[in-house]
C-alpha cells in the first residue's frame, strides 16, 4: 500500500501501470488518472479498504463496527473486471464516477470517486459576508436550494441570538415544504428515467415546474433563490399566494395517483426495485446515513420530528418509514413524504400568521425601502448592512435541518468579524454516498443504476 500523505507525492496509478504496453493509451489514462482515489486491484488493496469496498461493515455486529478479517480477499480469482462508470454517464445524476469490480454480472466491490464538481464553496463562504453567504450556499444542493439557505440562516441567527417573527418562520416552512415536494417529484422523475420510464420523467418535471413557477413568482428565480436570509426572508409572499399554493398542492396531490398507477403497481418497476440494495438499519446508522435512505430501512428518524426547528411542532404530519429497506421502499417513502408535505402545506395555508416577514433589527435586516427615502438613519443602516454586513459575536454553532436528502448541517465559526471564519456544510449526499458500496454488494451491475438513483445523490451537494 502506498500512502500519499506527503504533499507532492502522488499515489500509485494502478490503471496506468496496466496499460504501459500502449503509450498512447497510457498517456490518455494518465490525463484523467486519480491515483489512489480510484479502485485499485484487489491484491494491491489493504484488507480494511477491501472490506469497505465490499460493504464489509454490514456483516459485523454493531459493537464491532468493522472487522477487517471479514473481508473476502479470495473472491473471483482471475475472472474479474474493474469497470469504470462515469463521471460522464447519464445515470450517475451528474458527475459521479463509480468504479466497480465485477465477476460476470455480479458486483464484488465498488468505490465512488468524487470531486469532479468541487468548486470550493466552503472556502468561498469564508470570503463572503453573512449577508452574501446565502447566495453561496443556495448553489450547493441545487434541487433543494431553500433548505441550504435555511440552514445557513438558522446558524447565523443562532450566533446572533435574534428572534424571527412568526410569519417569517411560517413562510420559511411553506417554502421548504414546497421545495421538498419539488425535490421529491424530481427524484421520482429521474428514478423513473433510470428505470426506463420516460413518461415518469415527463410527469415529474411537469409537477416540479408548478412549484418552480411559484418560486419564481415569490423569489424572482426558479433556482438559487437567496430568499431565506439571516433575519427572515427577502420579501413577503405576493398577493394571491394562497390560491397558487392551493392549486399546486391540489394538482400534485391528484397527480400522485398517476404516479401510483404508472409505477407503484407496475410489475417491471417492482421487479427492478424490490429486494434490490437492501442494507440493515444498524449499518446505515453506523455509516451516518440519514433521510429517506435511513427511513426506508425502518428507522423513524426525521429532524422535523426529533429535533423540531421552525414551527414543525405546530403542524401535524407523519414520519414515513419503510420495512424492507430496498429500492422500492425508498421510492415509497419519498412518494408518501410528498403527501405528508402536502398535508403540512395545507395546515400552513390555514395557520399562516400575519406580521413582519423579517426581524426588525437594524443590525441584521435592512430597513423597508420606503423608509430609506425619508430617514437618513435608515439610509445609513441600509448602507452599513450591504457594505459592512452583520457582525455576530464570537462563537461556533452547529445547526441541522431535514433536507429532502437527509440531515443538512451547517457548522459556523465566527471570530466577531463580518464574515464567517469557517463555514462547513454537512452535506447529506456526501455522507449517504458512503453507503453505496454496502448497498451494491452482491448485486447485479444492472441494479447499480437503480441503487444509485435510490440514494439520490445531488453532486453539487456531494462536492460543494
Amino acid at each position, binding site marked *: 500500500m502506498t*500512502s*500519499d*500523505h506527503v*504533499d*507532492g507525492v*502522488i*499515489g500509485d496509478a494502478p490503471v496506468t501501470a496496466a496499460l504501459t504496453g500502449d503509450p498512447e493509451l497510457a498517456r490518455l489514462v494518465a*490525463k*484523467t*488518472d*486519480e*491515483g*489512489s*482515489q480510484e479502485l485499485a486491484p484487489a491484491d494491491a488493496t489493504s484488507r*480494511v*479498504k477491501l472490506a*469497505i469496498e465490499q460493504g464489509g*461493515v454490514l456483516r459485523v455486529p*454493531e459493537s464491532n*463496527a*468493522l472487522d477487517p478479517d471479514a473481508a473476502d480477499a479470495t473472491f473471483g480469482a482471475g475472472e474479474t473486471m474493474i469497470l469504470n462508470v462515469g463521471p460522464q454517464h447519464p445515470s450517475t445524476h451528474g458527475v459521479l464516477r463509480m468504479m466497480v469490480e465485477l465477476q460476470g454480472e455480479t458486483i464484488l466491490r465498488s468505490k465512488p470517486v*468524487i*470531486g469532479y464538481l*468541487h468548486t*470550493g464553496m*466552503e*472556502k*468561498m463562504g469564508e*470570503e463572503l459576508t453573512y449577508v452574501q453567504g446565502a447566495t453561496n450556499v443556495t448553489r450547493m444542493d441545487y434541487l433543494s436550494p431553500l433548505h441550504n439557505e435555511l440552514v445557513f440562516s438558522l446558524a447565523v441567527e*443562532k450566533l446572533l441570538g435574534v428572534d424571527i417573527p412568526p410569519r417569517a418562520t411560517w413562510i420559511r416552512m411553506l417554502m421548504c415544504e414546497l421545495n421538498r415536494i419539488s425535490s421529491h417529484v424530481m427524484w421520482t422523475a429521474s428514478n423513473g428515467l433510470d428505470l426506463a420510464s420516460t413518461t415518469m420523467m415527463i410527469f415529474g418535471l411537469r409537477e416540479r415546474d408548478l412549484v418552480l413557477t411559484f418560486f419564481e413568482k415569490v423569489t424572482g428565480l426558479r433556482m438559487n433563490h437567496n430568499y431565506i436570509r439571516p433575519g427572515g426572508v427577502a420579501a413577503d409572499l405576493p398577493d394571491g399566494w394562497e390560491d397558487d399554493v392551493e392549486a399546486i398542492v391540489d394538482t400534485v396531490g391528484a397527480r400522485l395517483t398517476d404516479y401510483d398507477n404508472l409505477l407503484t403497481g407496475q410489475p417491471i418497476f417492482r421487479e427492478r426495485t424490490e429486494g434490490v440494495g437492501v442494507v440493515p438499519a444498524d449499518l446505515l*446508522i*453506523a*455509516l*451516518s*446515513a*440519514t433521510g429517506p435512505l435511513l427511513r426506508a430501512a425502518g*428507522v423513524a*428518524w426525521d429532524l422535523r420530528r*426529533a*429535533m423540531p426547528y421552525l414551527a414543525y411542532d405546530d403542524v401535524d404530519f407523519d414520519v414515513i418509514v419503510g420495512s424492507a429497506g430496498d429500492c422500492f421502499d425508498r421510492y415509497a417513502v419519498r412518494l408518501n413524504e410528498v403527501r405528508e408535505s402536502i398535508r403540512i402545506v395545507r395546515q400552513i395555508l390555514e395557520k399562516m400568521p400575519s406580521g413582519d416577514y423579517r426581524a426588525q433589527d437594524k443590525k441584521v435586516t435592512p430597513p423597508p425601502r420606503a423608509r430609506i427615502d425619508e430617514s437618513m438613519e435608515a439610509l445609513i443602516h441600509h448602507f452599513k448592512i450591504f457594505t459592512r454586513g452583520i457582525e455576530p459575536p*464570537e*462563537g*461556533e*454553532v*452547529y445547526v*441541522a435541518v431535514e433536507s429532502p436528502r437527509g*440531515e443538512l*448541517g451547517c*457548522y459556523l*465559526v465566527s*471570530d466577531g468579524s463580518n464574515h464567517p*471564519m*469557517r463555514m*462547513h456544510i*454537512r452535506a447529506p449526499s*456526501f*455522507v449517504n*454516498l*458512503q453507503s453505496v458500496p454496502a448497498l451494491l454488494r452482491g448485486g447485479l451491475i444492472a441494479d447499480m443504476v437503480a441503487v444509485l438513483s435510490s440514494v439520490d445523490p445531488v453532486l453539487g451537494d456531494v*462536492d460543494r
Partner: protein
Amino acid sequence: MAPGGSLAWQIPALGQILTADSAGDEVFFPTRAQYVEVATVLREAGFATCSDLCAVDYLTHLGRKLPDGVAPERFEVVVNLLSLAPARRVRLRVMVPEHDPVCPTLFFVYPGTENMEREAYDLMGIRFDGHPDPSRILMPQDWEGHPLRRDYGVGRVPVQFKGAPGPR
C-alpha cells in the same frame, strides 16, 4: 443544556474531560490521546451516529474563547455526535497543533467518518492516523496544498483543467 442534564454528570468516564456550553450545545474538549476513547464511551452511551466531522483552521483567531486548561492550537477537529433515542447532540473539539497535524482516526468507532476524514485531510491537511484510505477525495490527486487553510490564498491558483495546454 439539553434535557437530562450534563453528560459529564451522567457518564463518569467523561468526568475528566473539559467541557463547555456553546450556544446551548454541550461541547467536550478531549486531548488527542483521549479523543478515540471519549468517542467510544459516547457511542456506548447511545450516540450511535457521527453526523459530522470537520476541521477548522484558527490561524487568524488563535485567541478564541476556550475553557481553562485547554491550550489553543492552530487546528481543531470538530466532531458532532448524534443520539437517535433520546434525540440529542454532543460536540467534541480536539486541538491539533500546527507542527504535527495528525489526529487518530475515528473510523473504527464510527465507520461513517471515512469520507469526512478524507475531506478534512484533503482540504485542511490534517492526517488521520490509521485511516484505511488516506487519499484526497475532492481535489485532484496531484494537487499541492490544502485549500481550506487560512494561509492558502483565494485566487492564488488559476482554474486548472487536467491536461489542458497552459496559458499562452
